[in-house]
């Protein structure tokens, strides 16, 4: 939503949502990233979200091949990539067709008129040219012959037509830069660095960018360009980061902090694979990144590496977690520290591989045979994937138990500014590796720490502590195989108590907005951005509404019941059919819970949330 700034001159905006869309070969991701980075450098807060087609090389000009990149920039804190688009840049008719529903009447659409040929129009599934049919009457349409102007601008550079056309995204970017008073320097530098060995490519892109900028200026696309003032962000050094990179880096930080090398056993799966891609780049930190033959080998090798003393993790998405279930049970039984990252996507089965959902909560909590408790935590923003990957490692290593870290396709691929952290400022991690001199008397592999109930970690290669573990039930303390009925019952309770005790080591649940009152909105994981935006704006309007957003799911913070008791009504919002709602009902049955769910592979819309919450508040 373009909001005009009430105070100063009317050309300044509070925030704007721009979506760049085109064929997957049109360079929309690059265009979007350039715009967002340039805006971040100006001090705006940003949130971005890429949108790829699921087909890798869909036919050109078809609706299946449309790729997009949305960026939300603002002078105040931004928590989501935005619901409704203020400016849509559409490089062809198919891109227009796919995205037009996200643009409200009165908003701006920029199109490349050269691409509206009869052939492209029919490929997109339009009966007639939407530029002429009157379909777009309710919008501000800026028509620019982007392809031909690009060719004209760089006709002397010496590239062939195909190569010339590759620059046309820069023409569009140049136009948008002028409209929003962004400087071109950052993008110019980017090309100079990135294509050092290809001077023609540098020249073509820079010339096109400037041509687009000048075109917009000369034609005065708008009465005057718009300004978005810098956001009031905490001082410090920032970078833009997406959730998957932040997750990978959180593990790197945890490895260094704990003094252990990182081991990743992983099998490619959308949308988790980028964590593998990121970690294989950084072998210099001692990372052993192993691309396994399947999901099961991914986690099994992770268990082996953990047994041998690494900070061992495996990354996957829903279907992969299902395959890893049995091995997770082995990690529960052997009480070895591993982290399993599940970047959730729409399910069941193959489901919606590239779309987001929160429907693996029950699987994470209960998706194993036997009584098989594991720690479950969830990151809630792209940038705090860093903190929760670190936290998952810390909890696994200190409590000697598997940890499942839930993220989702939305925060994994979404980007936001991250105030850069150093390893030094992260909390200490004290893993439980032992040597013979730490042990009084006979070594008992399943003897426990009194506070955490965690066992010691004696790794192969340690003299005098040779021992055997495995998936069969263990006798208390000795860890020998035991089929004794009472021992099994007691060990089952000990494993549960060990996970329950983690509650002593995690922070209390915090409420945003009203600390008591009419309505408590409850969420967990990747929906934080939209839920906070909705609740906060209502709270600022004077509504007695608060948000309790969970990152720790098993165990839960100790003050949950205390917080829930301070509100008249509680509503649990999730991108599934009500899984956390069920969990809360079972765990804190003394409260009544309403629920609000969306299962479309899409994030919540802030507006829908606000409408829903208002309805409840009005209905008292």
């Amino acid at each position, binding site marked *: 939503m373009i909001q005009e700034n009430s105070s100063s001159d009317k050309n300044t905006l509070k925030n704007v949502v721009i979506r760049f869309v085109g064929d997957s070969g049109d360079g929309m991701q690059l265009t979007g990233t350039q715009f967002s980075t340039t805006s971040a450098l100006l001090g705006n807060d940003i949130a971005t979200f890429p949108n790829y087609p699921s087909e890798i090389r869909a036919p050109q000009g078809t609706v299946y091949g449309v790729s997009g990149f949305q960026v939300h920039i603002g002078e105040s804190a931004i928590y989501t990539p935005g619901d409704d688009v203020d400016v849509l840049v559409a490089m062809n008719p198919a891109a227009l067709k796919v995205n037009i529903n996200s643009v409200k009447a009165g908003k701006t659409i920029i199109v490349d008129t050269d691409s509206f040929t009869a052939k492209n129009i029919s490929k997109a599934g339009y009966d007639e040219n939407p530029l002429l049919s009157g379909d777009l009457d309710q919008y501000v349409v800026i028509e620019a012959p982007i392809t031909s102007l690009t060719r004209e601008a760089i006709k002397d550079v010496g590239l062939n037509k195909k190569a010339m056309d590759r620059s046309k995204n820069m023409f569009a970017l140049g136009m948008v830069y002028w409209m929003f008073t962004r400087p071109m320097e950052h993008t110019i530098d980017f090309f100079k660095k990135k294509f050092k060995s290809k001077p023609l490519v540098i020249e073509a892109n820079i010339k096109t960018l400037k041509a687009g900028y000048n075109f917009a200026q000369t034609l005065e696309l708008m009465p005057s360009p718009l300004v978005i003032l810098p956001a009031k962000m905490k001082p410090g050094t920032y970078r833009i980061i997406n959730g998957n990179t932040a997750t990978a880096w959180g593990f790197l930080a945890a490895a260094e902090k704990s003094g252990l090398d990182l081991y990743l*056993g992983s099998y490619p799966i959308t949308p988790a694979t980028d964590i593998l891609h990121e970690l294989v780049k950084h072998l*210099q930190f001692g990372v052993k990144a192993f691309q396994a033959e399947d999901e099961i080998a991914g986690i099994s090798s992770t268990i*082996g590496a953990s*047994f041998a003393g690494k900070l061992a993790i495996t990354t996957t998405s829903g279907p992969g977690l299902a395959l890893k279930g049995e091995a997770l049970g082995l990690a529960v039984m052997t009480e070895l520290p591993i982290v399993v990252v599940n970047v959730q996507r729409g399910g069941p089965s193959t489901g919606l591989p590239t779309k987001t959902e929160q429907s693996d909560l029950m699987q994470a909590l209960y998706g194993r045979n036997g009584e098989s408790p594991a720690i479950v935590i969830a990151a809630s923003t792209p940038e705090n994937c860093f903190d929760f990957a670190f936290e998952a490692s810390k909890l696994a290593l200190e409590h000697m138990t598997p940890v499942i870290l839930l993220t989702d396709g939305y925060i994994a691929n979404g980007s936001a500014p991250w105030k850069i952290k150093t390893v030094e400022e992260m909390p200490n991690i004290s893993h439980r590796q032992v040597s013979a001199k730490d042990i009084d008397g006979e070594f008992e592999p399943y003897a426990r720490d009194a506070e955490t109930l965690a066992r010691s970690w004696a790794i192969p290669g340690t003299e005098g502590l040779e021992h055997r573990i*495995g998936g069969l039930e263990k006798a208390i303390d000795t860890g020998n195989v035991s089929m004794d009925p009472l021992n099994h019952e007691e060990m089952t309770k000990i494993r549960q108590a060990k996970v329950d005790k983690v509650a002593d080591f995690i922070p209390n649940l915090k409420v945003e907005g009203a600390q008591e009152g009419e309505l408590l909105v409850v969420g967990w994981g990747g929906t934080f951005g939209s839920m906070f935006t909705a609740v906060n704006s209502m709270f600022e309007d004077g509504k007695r509404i608060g948000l309790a957003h969970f990152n720790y799911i098993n165990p839960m913070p100790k003050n949950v019941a205390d917080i829930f008791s301070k509100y008249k009504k509680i509503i649990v919002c999730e991108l599934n059919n009500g899984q956390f709602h069920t969990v809360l009902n079972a765990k804190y049955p003394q409260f009544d819970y309403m629920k609000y769910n969306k299962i479309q592979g899409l994030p919540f819309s802030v507006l829908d949330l606000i409408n829903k919450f208002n309805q409840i508040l009005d209905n008292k």
Partner: protein
Amino acid sequence: MTDSNIPMYTFKDFASDQEVRWCPGCDDYVVLKSIQKALPQMGRKKEDFVFISGIGCSSRFPYYVATYGMHGIHGRAAAIATGVKLANKNLSVWVATGDGDSLAIGGNHFIHLIRRNIDINLVLFNNEIYGLTKGQFSPTSLMGQKTKSSPFGNIQPPFHPGELAIGSGSRFFARVAGGNTKMQQSIFIDAEKFKGTAIVEVLQNCVIFNDGAFDKYTDRAVKDDAQLYVEHGKPMIFGKNSNKGLVLNGLKLEVVTIGENGVEEKDILVHDAHNPDSTLHLMLAKMHMPVVTGIIRAVKEKTYDELCNERIEEVKNNAKFKSVNELFASGETYEVK
């Protein structure tokens, strides 16, 4: 063995305090004894041995060896062992597994372990039956074999472990007779010395559910004529009178008798376990009468774990970022005042 830092172990040092619970007369006892006797001869510290297993009778193995060990889950021993070896290259990592464990449910991990050539020794207890679940046919059971799950005779053609291993790119494949502890010890020691995935197939008699499956090769009365023990560089001669041997007839191996039809000792094929071309090794592995024991193939190649560690060192030397803090602060960053 020459390293003075390594204590002088005896086989007792490798016997755990757990009661061994295989059926009396099971060949698994022989293999356990062979391992316990071979380990002290390997010149390695006790704490550096790790035994990993899956599920099945033979997968109880780690509990009985007083080293580090993990009894894993069905079929996954090779994958668990892979993580152990990649985590610490100094460990001597062993997998104890069976024909059900490694060739059925764990088939994928078995072939990929071999393909990658990770320095792990895998002892495949092949008894051609499921023992622990009480007598179903396995992927190596013979056609027509009557078992609990094939009362009218098995109609699934068997895998040949040697063929599967060599087909997967095996660099080291050996076969031993289940009752022959001397042969087992020497081959286990060679397997440990070999850098790369070493597969040792044990023709293991299950006295309960498939008794006598290998009698045709191992029975005292026939074994000299039914087993050919191969050694690299030696002519492939066998038989009670050491007068039988192998020659190549066209594309087939043929058993001939020295002194008959003008065959002389010099005509007998000399075993070349080091030949990178696996054609002959495959023929030897598949041969039934005689069955071939000993090291059929031993071809040195870089191991995956070596490559993995070398790659890390290379990257370390050329790394743009020396610390994770440098990485975090690299690239496009900006200051908010």
